[in-house]
């Protein structure tokens, strides 16, 4: 026999992790249990988790009706999906050009990419807002999508990735008669799938959460994205009915969390990979 590690450490580790996990998930626990409680009980205070009286139907129906919650969730999905679609659509060809082609503008464009990485959207929101207003695009889904269709981060990430492709791949495609555009969509995209899906995850999480831009460009509840929709809900409910408020937060948080739980590895690897490569 050789030395066997003691039983002490594995147990300590689990206990520590478990305790921290409990603290980390406390907000979720309270969020869900409070969403089951009627207003009176919430205001009575007290740490008991299980409701004395169940008020699920009331809370959740209020959550769904006070603002058009389902519509808002749908808006979020449409906006995020469209953003990712356009981001990849524009970024991939540009990244390919920067990575594999020789042309005069290459350094300038790459310089602009770096500049874009350093300038967050918040800094240039005023002129963008003015543009949107002038174009009559306020309070449309288009305005929520348009400014984000350019993703310098995507260009940067894809460029790094495509640079690792062997030049022979491109040469072979060319000698097969493919045009450069065809190369991008028929050769590069299938091989860049890991980077593309990693980026998609990153983009969806970032834009699903975005409050700043919707806040300044959209005032109609019908067109709100989830963060903005929640703000409207809070305004409508003025801090009273915590039960319904929690119900709303549950419903709004659910989609992405469920998606995450189903595709955990995709999420975590995608976000770390985008982070590290970018």
């Amino acid at each position, binding site marked *: 026999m050789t030395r066997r590690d003691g039983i002490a450490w594995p147990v300590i580790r689990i206990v520590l992790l478990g305790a921290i996990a409990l603290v980390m998930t406390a907000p979720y626990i309270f969020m869900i249990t409070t969403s089951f409680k009627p207003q009176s009980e919430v205001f009575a205070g007290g740490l008991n988790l299980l409701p004395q009286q169940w008020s699920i139907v009331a809370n959740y129906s209020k959550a769904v009706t006070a603002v058009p919650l389902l519509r808002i969730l749908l808006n979020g999905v449409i906006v995020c999906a469209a953003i990712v679609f356009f981001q990849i659509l524009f970024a991939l060809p*540009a990244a390919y050009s920067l990575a594999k082609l*020789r042309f005069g503008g290459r350094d300038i464009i790459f310089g602009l990419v770096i500049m874009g990485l*350093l300038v967050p959207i918040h800094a*240039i929101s005023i002129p963008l807002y003015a543009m949107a207003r002038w174009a009559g695009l306020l309070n449309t889904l288009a305005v929520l999508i348009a400014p984000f269709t*350019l993703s310098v981060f995507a260009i940067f990430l894809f460029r790094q990735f495509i640079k690792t492709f062997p030049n022979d791949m491109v040469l072979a495609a060319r000698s097969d008669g493919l045009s450069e555009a065809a190369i*991008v969509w028929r050769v590069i995209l299938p091989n860049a799938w890991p980077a593309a899906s990693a980026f998609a995850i990153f983009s969806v999480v970032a834009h699903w959460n975005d409050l700043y831009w919707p806040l300044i460009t959209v005032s109609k509840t019908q067109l709100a994205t*989830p963060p903005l929709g929640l703000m409207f809900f809070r305004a409508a409910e003025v801090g009273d009915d915590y039960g319904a408020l929690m119900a709303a937060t549950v419903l709004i948080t659910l989609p992405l969390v469920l998606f*995450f739980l189903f595709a955990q590895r995709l999420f975590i690897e995608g976000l770390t990979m985008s982070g590290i490569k970018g």
Partner: protein
Amino acid sequence: MRHEVFPSVAGAARHEAIAAWRLCAPTLVLMLLLLVLPSLAVVALSLTDAELGSSDWHFLGLSAYRDLLGDRDFQRAFRNTAVYVGLVAPASVLLGLALALLIEAGTTARAFFRSVFFLPVVSLIVAMGTVWQYLMHPTIGPLDLLLGKLGLPAVNWLGTSDTVLWGLAIIGIWQAVGFNMVLYLAGLTSIDRALYQAAEIDGAKSAWERFRLVTWPMLSPMTLFVITISVINSVKVFETVAALTQGGPAKASEVLLWSIYQEGFVYLHIGTASAMAVVFVAVLLVLILVQTRVLERRVQYQ
């Protein structure tokens, strides 16, 4: 690796260049519209006292910046943001590292804990912020009720100007830890196991010695990255302030982005707001430069 995929024959090179320009065309247009022009506009606006909706404006030149930097409220926003970053960044980095080390220290339930700690990252900030606001409620919030049970006085986290930044920081740390942890996990798993074996053979007997000899040095590049990301993300704090405190109480939680929003879209002083935006970008630039120059030199051995 050579970037050229065409030999330098004149016709082929021209063909390649034309194709490249064509592929980049949409991006170029967007860059112009969404990046270059707005950036120039912001710089231009920052030198004026323009207001949205009014056509009466004056050119102030650099005195706009002098006024801004001397403005008490702006200085406070600066300070508040600095305090917030100083609370959130170090704590979320260290906690992320600690959790990653704990998870990697054993073989059981790794994927489970990794997902649990990552949940806050994929949860809507505004929604979870709202939940925290309920938790931190002075009278009915579970947090203060718990403190009461432990014999500690209740704290009105988000309601008093002394503690509001702490309250927001707790939420910020809670949200950021998972991401840092996952980055550190990636770093830890990429460390060559043979190094630990060599350390053992060389006489590094305790976990602390192994950490000092192998883990910490090998994680240095990742640490640099995590710190950079954490600082930049915490400088950009906005959602929680907008949803929970609106800069209050008494401007105690007014942070840079909130100031820009208020100044530009509520008070409509787009000149001042633009100047603030320029300062904001400058701050980010300085932070990035400092970190890459100063810290990267110590991380050069990979």
